[in-house]
């Protein structure tokens, strides 16, 4: 009986609330105690919200080059102009060539402040490829000036816009990939655990086999097999499928393991003795008992898929420019010397680490909360 292993319950005056608390309520209470997980969940929600509305959130079209702003460093948001408080604004850059290193140097033009506004008109886009629009979350009042909060790349494209656009591809691959592997895993793992016998034996051996193969070389080989002439969207789904084909085995194992363990539970036995049908046992007893675990497992899988896409695109076997994904963006920083002089190119990397970290924290929190009945 130690502090760590006991379910921690709210104060004693809330006993009635606790007594009638369902599994999900208990889980929520437990999860909320895990501060890092809660914060992480918000961060993830923020990123996914961004992924949904990239066209609107990104200030510019990610593929439009700006010849005058190659490798421009991030601009600062300022509040003081000529010593006086001013609404948030930026200064534009004037560039000159350093006489010694011959590199372009950017300096702020402190003459002219460019106020930042919300809901501004900017580059036209098609939201989700369907609806036309030209409003952006924020931008400069002056349509001719530019704001680069995360700097620009070698073609002078806005890094912030690129990172934001990358969010959509990378995060959705993680999500869709997990759903695909869930479908495969639940189907095969469930079948395996439910029927047992020869079917189980066969599927188990198959899983072991797939798991013994080194993952990344397998991914590489599979992605290399995707036809070259495929369009970006086809490649996108192709890569998602490749990632899921490798990843479903773990989920299948979890599903099967839980299924087997739960089938032996006394309450399942009790239901059977009551005359409950198989369907009822599966959907009323087995499935609810494993969902919470499954959600935790899946949450921990998503970052792995995001990383897989990143890795594949990074080395050129995944998505390719002009598609903008985090992996594609990272491919740009392979040249260390460029990064050394323009470290803001690493902002993609920071995003990846933050998102993956948050997924891991959330997943951990969910896993701890998944079984609120252990003592």
């Amino acid at each position, binding site marked *: *009986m*130690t*502090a760590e292993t*006991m379910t*921690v319950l709210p104060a*004693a005056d809330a006993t009635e609330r606790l007594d009638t608390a369902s599994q999900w309520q208990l889980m929520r209470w437990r999860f909320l105690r895990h501060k890092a997980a809660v914060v992480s969940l918000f961060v993830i929600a923020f990123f996914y919200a961004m992924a949904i509305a990239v066209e609107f959130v990104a200030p510019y079209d990610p593929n439009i080059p700006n010849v005058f702003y190659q490798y421009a460093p991030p601009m600062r948001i300022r509040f003081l102009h000529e010593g006086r408080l001013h609404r948030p604004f930026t200064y534009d850059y004037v560039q000159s060539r350093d006489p010694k290193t011959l590199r372009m140097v950017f300096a702020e033009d402190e003459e002219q402040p460019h106020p930042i506004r919300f809901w501004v008109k900017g580059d036209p886009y098609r939201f989700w490829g369907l609806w036309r629009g030209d409003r952006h979350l924020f931008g400069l009042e002056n349509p001719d000036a530019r704001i680069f909060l995360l700097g620009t790349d070698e073609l002078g494209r806005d890094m912030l816009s690129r990172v934001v656009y990358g969010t959509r591809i990378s995060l959705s691959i993680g999500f869709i990939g997990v759903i695909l592997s869930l479908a495969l895993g639940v189907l095969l793992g469930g079948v395996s655990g439910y029927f047992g016998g020869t079917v189980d034996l066969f599927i188990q051996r198959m899983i072991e086999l797939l798991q013994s193969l080194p993952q990344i070389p397998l991914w590489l080989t599979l992605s290399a097999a995707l036809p070259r002439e495929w369009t970006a969207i086809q490649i996108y789904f192709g890569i998602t499928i490749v990632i899921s084909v490798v990843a479903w085995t773990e989920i299948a194992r979890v599903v099967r393991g839980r299924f087997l363990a739960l089938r032996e539970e006394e309450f399942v036995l009790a239901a059977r003795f009551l005359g409950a049908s198989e369907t009822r046992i599966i959907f009323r007893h087995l499935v609810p008992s494993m969902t919470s675990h499954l959600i935790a497992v899946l949450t921990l899988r998503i970052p792995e898929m995001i990383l897989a896409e990143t890795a594949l695109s990074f080395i050129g076997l995944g998505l390719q420019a002009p598609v903008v994904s985090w992996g594609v963006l990272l491919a740009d920083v392979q040249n260390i010397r460029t990064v050394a002089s323009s470290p803001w190119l690493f902002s993609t990397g920071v995003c990846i680490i933050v998102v993956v970290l948050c997924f891991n924290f959330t997943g951990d929190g969910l896993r701890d909360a998944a079984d609120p009945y252990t003592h």
Partner: protein
Amino acid sequence: MDADQPLLEIRDLKTHFHIRQGTVRAVDGVSLSVFPGQTLAIVGESGCGKSITAQSILRILPRAGRIEHGHIHLQLSGGDPSRGEIVDLVGLNPKGGAMREIRGGEIGMIFQEPMSTFSPVYTIGHQIAEAARLHRTTDDIEPRELVLDMLAHVGFAHPDRTWSQYPHELSGGMRQRAMIAMALIGRPRILIADEPTTALDVTTEAQILRLMKRLQAEFGMAIIFITHDLGVVARMADQVAVMYLGNIVEQGDVDTVFHAPRHPYLKALLRSVPRLDPAENIGLEPISGMVPDPFSRPAGCPFHPRCPEFMPDTCDTAVPQLLPAVAEPGRTRAACHLYT
């Protein structure tokens, strides 16, 4: 060494657990004496604090548990036998050398789960020999000889085969025998047995109980026998302490405890046990209600909400003390307001 002098004396022991939900007063003012060669049974239902008392003696409490108050005086062996050196275990560092000497050397312990009290990856011989090396280090005796001898003592027909067996190769009863061998190899003068037969079948239990009695006669050690089974108490104990919610509610010699119980809890407990002989089996009288939540202990006597002899304004206000300080012959000491 004087037989009237207790080997081990616990005075007003309080062991509390500090966990997130609050403090659990698992042991709350327990005083006990253990005399040489005698068996003291501590009996009570789950959660009454009997195992925590045992763990407090050996200072092997779980992380959240702390001894808050009290003394545990142990008379050490060696030195001048008439005086003996007395040490307060509460004052010792639980990880220190002095305490480790006492564990296994002065006080041995056996546990409930014979399945999991041995590490699965070492042989039985190795694990017992380790204890032998810790407490019986003499140059002229090989630990192996000692262990084989002890294994034979606890009833292994082929000690040398058992020596190289792994725990999973033994049955539950055999494992418990091996556990006893391990606890006794250091020739402790006190053996703490924490529900040693609860996980065993009744015929195996009989084997183990008989074995313990035989070994006690042979080695002359005192036994602290922790159990919830009144039958086992009746078979094994000389002295009995009945615990309820961290307190001793009644204490006395075994015959008096069973035949002249005084505390309403003990009386009720005895009435609620089904008898083996169908002829003696009349209706059971269960104790109403249930053991209260450890976080919301009742004020006053902890048993008062379930007590059939509850006296308003007395039982729910003052905590009854275990009286009298010294048991009168033919009388137990009971912590109950009926007797004050």
